[in-house]
């Protein structure tokens, strides 16, 4: 626990130092990055040791703010999420150290470094806070710090607008959290998390209301559909290592909040779980479809984050519903899948965003249609990104396959054993998950195949060169994490078992009994099959290489079906790759709106195709909503005081009214 406080202290010191050293930008960069690395390493050590020991005790420090106490603690659930936080922060901060070097001359750089470390410290406090006010303060600091990081390149218009969307979404979410925590405190009589948990049997207001508040408040941070609108805006705008942190960890903070809230409410009825699972499954399918229409590589990855959050929500919801039914085997599998996917997603999405950043940096743009041929130009970076894309498609032998396999296992078991409507819903969820997996394969072969393979489609991609090891080495660490999580999923499950027990509400002994067949399958036959896969792949690849060397291999142009002079512009584009799916299968609302002028006549003058991406949650839900609110709010403007005394009068009147209300009530 002391180690954890030391980590936070180092991070806060690392926030102050770059500001003090802002006269010497390269020194500021080095200290800021160094402190971030040191703090993350300390934090990772404390989180892992807490996870191994099954939780570390809480520490309270005096704090004079009203209603607040500085109480932090690392129970298994907190430690589990902190492992994801600091495990991803290490490579991301290291990546940032190199990535930010071209920006050394910028005035905002020391501030950026300051807030980068503040963000890490705030997220650590969000995961470890044991008191509502402290949690909310950390939550707000996290939101503001990440807003300032997202708007690093604020001279660009789209970055400012993305930052604004993010800020609005974040604050609306926090408003719901305030309501949630105050209502919980009314039942518990205190703002401490222990008091919340102790009073879970008798909440002051209906548990359904509290669950709904948590779902909206935390869901907007997690990116549950349709509250996900800030993700596809903020992630492309932010520098890549920040996108990796936002997507890999901050969305998980929302999920952490939902999981934590479940432990403060009475044992949830099945429909809470079904609601969560339904939102998750529908969101996963919708989001991955939206990813197909995205031209911006980081925007596509942002939608994939929404998809993965949906998958985790589906797993958690399945677990909640199964617990309510008493199907502990299903609940254990589902929660194991949900939590393991948190780690896997942190690793693979971190890898994806770092890779996308490095690739976009090398190709001078994030537009998929301008990339191509990058694997031959930057073999290390692009090769590592390919590993990330395979992981995002949940392919064996990588980590995300193991966690999705657990979720499939839960749904299969529920679909085979349950009766009536429960079985029906399990089948529906299984079909949705399989479909989302199939669409994810389209989305990631699209990114991999069109950005990294083939011939370059633009001048930026043609001139791209391999970046320095400072950029690809952190990616290699994350790729190794994906491979390790895939090779030793049983070890990861054993490590996480305390957190799984805590999140699922199952007793540890029952959990280990329910998980033991899974563990033996993971470390027995499945490992043999995956080993065969790896060995077989290597042997076959070496064999064909030897045959090619022995029997001769000629180099020629690509076969273009008889056409003699194919050019790079004749390749399939990212748009055309997704077209069949978007036009034949996807609902119209989820595919980009296109304006096509086809070539006409024997000597066509000019032809064009233009597509505009749109997110139905924005165009059909939030934009009209906010427009109405804006119109209504404009009417209030009449009462806006243009003189200070009038403004003060309003304040005094409000105060008086509140005092009067209090006096009347007592």
């Amino acid at each position, binding site marked *: 626990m002391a180690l954890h406080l030391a980590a936070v202290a180092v991070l806060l010191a690392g926030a102050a130092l770059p500001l003090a050293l802002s006269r010497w930008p390269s020194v500021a960069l080095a200290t800021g990055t160094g402190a971030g690395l040191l703090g993350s390493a300390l934090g990772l050590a404390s989180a892992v040791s807490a996870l191994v020991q099954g939780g570390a005790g809480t520490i309270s420090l005096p704090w004079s703010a009203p209603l607040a106490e500085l109480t932090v603690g690392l129970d298994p659930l907190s430690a589990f999420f902190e492992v994801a936080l600091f495990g991803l922060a290490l490579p991301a901060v290291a990546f940032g150290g190199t990535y930010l070097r071209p920006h050394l001359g910028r005035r905002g750089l020391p501030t950026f470094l300051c807030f980068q470390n503040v963000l890490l410290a705030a997220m650590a406090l969000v995961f470890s806070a044991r008191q509502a006010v402290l949690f909310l303060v950390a939550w707000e600091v996290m939101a503001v710090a990440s807003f300032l990081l997202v708007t690093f390149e604020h001279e660009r218009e789209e970055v400012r607008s993305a930052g604004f969307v993010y800020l609005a979404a974040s604050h609306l979410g926090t408003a719901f959290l305030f309501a949630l925590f105050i209502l919980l405190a009314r039942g518990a009589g205190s703002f401490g998390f222990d008091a919340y948990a102790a009073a879970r049997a008798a909440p002051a207001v209906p548990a359904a209301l509290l669950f709904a508040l948590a779902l909206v408040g935390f869901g907007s941070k997690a990116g549950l559909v349709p509250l996900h609108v800030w993700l596809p805006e903020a992630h492309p705008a932010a520098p890549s290592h920040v996108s990796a942190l936002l997507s890999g960890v901050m969305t998980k903070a929302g999920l952490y909040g939902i999981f934590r809230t479940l432990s403060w409410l009475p044992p949830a009825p099945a429909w809470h779980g079904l609601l969560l699972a339904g939102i998750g499954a529908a969101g996963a399918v919708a989001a991955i479809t939206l990813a197909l229409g995205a031209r911006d590589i980081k925007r596509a990855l942002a939608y994939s984050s929404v998809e993965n959050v949906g998958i985790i929500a589906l797993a958690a919801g399945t677990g909640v519903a199964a617990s309510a039914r008493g199907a502990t085997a299903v609940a254990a599998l589902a929660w194991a899948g949900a939590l393991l996917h948190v780690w896997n997603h942190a690793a693979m999405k971190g890898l994806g965003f770092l890779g996308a950043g490095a690739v976009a940096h090398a190709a001078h743009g994030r537009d998929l249609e301008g990339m191509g041929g990058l694997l031959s130009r930057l073999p290390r970076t692009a090769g590592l990104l390919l590993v990330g894309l395979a992981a995002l498609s949940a392919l064996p032998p990588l980590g995300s396959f193991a966690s999705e396999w657990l979720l499939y296992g839960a749904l299969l078991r529920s679909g085979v054993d349950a009766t*009536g*409507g429960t079985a*029906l819903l399990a089948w529906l969820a299984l079909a949705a998950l399989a479909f989302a997996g199939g669409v994810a394969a389209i989305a990631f072969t699209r990114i991999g195949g069109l950005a990294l393979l083939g011939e370059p489609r633009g001048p930026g991609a043609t001139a791209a060169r391999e970046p320095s090891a400072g950029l690809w080495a952190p990616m290699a660490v994350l790729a190794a994490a994906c491979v390790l999580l895939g090779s030793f999923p049983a070890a990861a499950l054993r490590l996480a078992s305390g957190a799984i027990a805590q999140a699922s509400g199952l007793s540890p002994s029952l959990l280990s009994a329910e998980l033991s067949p899974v563990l033996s399958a993971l470390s027995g036959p499945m490992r043999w099959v995956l080993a065969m896969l790896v060995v077989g792949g290597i042997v076959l690849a070496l064999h064909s290489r030897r045959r090619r060397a022995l029997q001769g291999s000629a180099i020629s142009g690509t076969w273009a079906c008889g056409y003699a002079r194919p050019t790079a512009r004749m390749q399939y584009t990212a748009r055309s790759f997704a077209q069949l799916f978007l036009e034949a*299968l996807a609902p119209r609302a989820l595919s980009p709106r296109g304006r096509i002028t086809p070539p006409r006549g024997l000597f066509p003058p000019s032809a064009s195709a233009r597509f505009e991406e749109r997110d139905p949650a924005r165009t059909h839900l939030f934009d009209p909503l906010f427009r109405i609110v804006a119109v209504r709010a404009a009417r209030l403007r009449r009462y806006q005081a243009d003189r200070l005394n009038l403004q003060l009068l309003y304040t005094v009147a409000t105060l008086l009214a509140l005092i009067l209300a209090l006096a009347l009530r007592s």
Partner: protein
Amino acid sequence: MTAWTDLAFILLVVSDFFLLASSRLKAVIRATGAQGVLLSALALLLARSEAHPVHVILLSVGALGVKAFLIPLLLTWAMREASIRREVDPIVGFLPSLVLGGLGVALAFAYAGGMPLPVPEQHPLLVPAALSTVWTGLLLVVSRRKAVAQVIGFLVLENGVFVFGLLLSDFMPAMVEAGVLLDLLAAVFVMGIVIFHINREFSSLDTGKLSALRD
């Protein structure tokens, strides 16, 4: 015996799926004809030993004659006569209507057991299969643009009602047989289509062509 009844009900539902997914009008017409054959077989298979044989045979033969032969022939004739295009042309696409149909069938089969029925079920699949067919018919009527396809939807709906009717055939045989006559309404629809097309194309009614109805 019960295996055959099972098979007939399942084929009925499978033909529902086919109707929702198929894009070729001719195939759709043929599928309604096949449903007619299935219904006629079901009327025989579900008959109780104490039922009056004349009624049972009347019902079966009536269904076979009207649903399996007369109406499909009439529809094919209308297609040719009014030179209707051979594609179905849906408002709601084939995939969404297929998925909707599947969901409806799933719900029908999962929850039909809870329905209050005036008489005991003769067969566990009867009510869900009837509900599924009614649901398919409704979907077809709502989601297809062409009048012929809508008539087919109506026929499918009617087929579903017929299956429900088999539940009651012991009590009110005459009512159920009269239900077969409902199909004549569909025949009138078909004539309406033909007349409408003739009207539009030649701006007059060629009664000579209408006399072909007699055969």
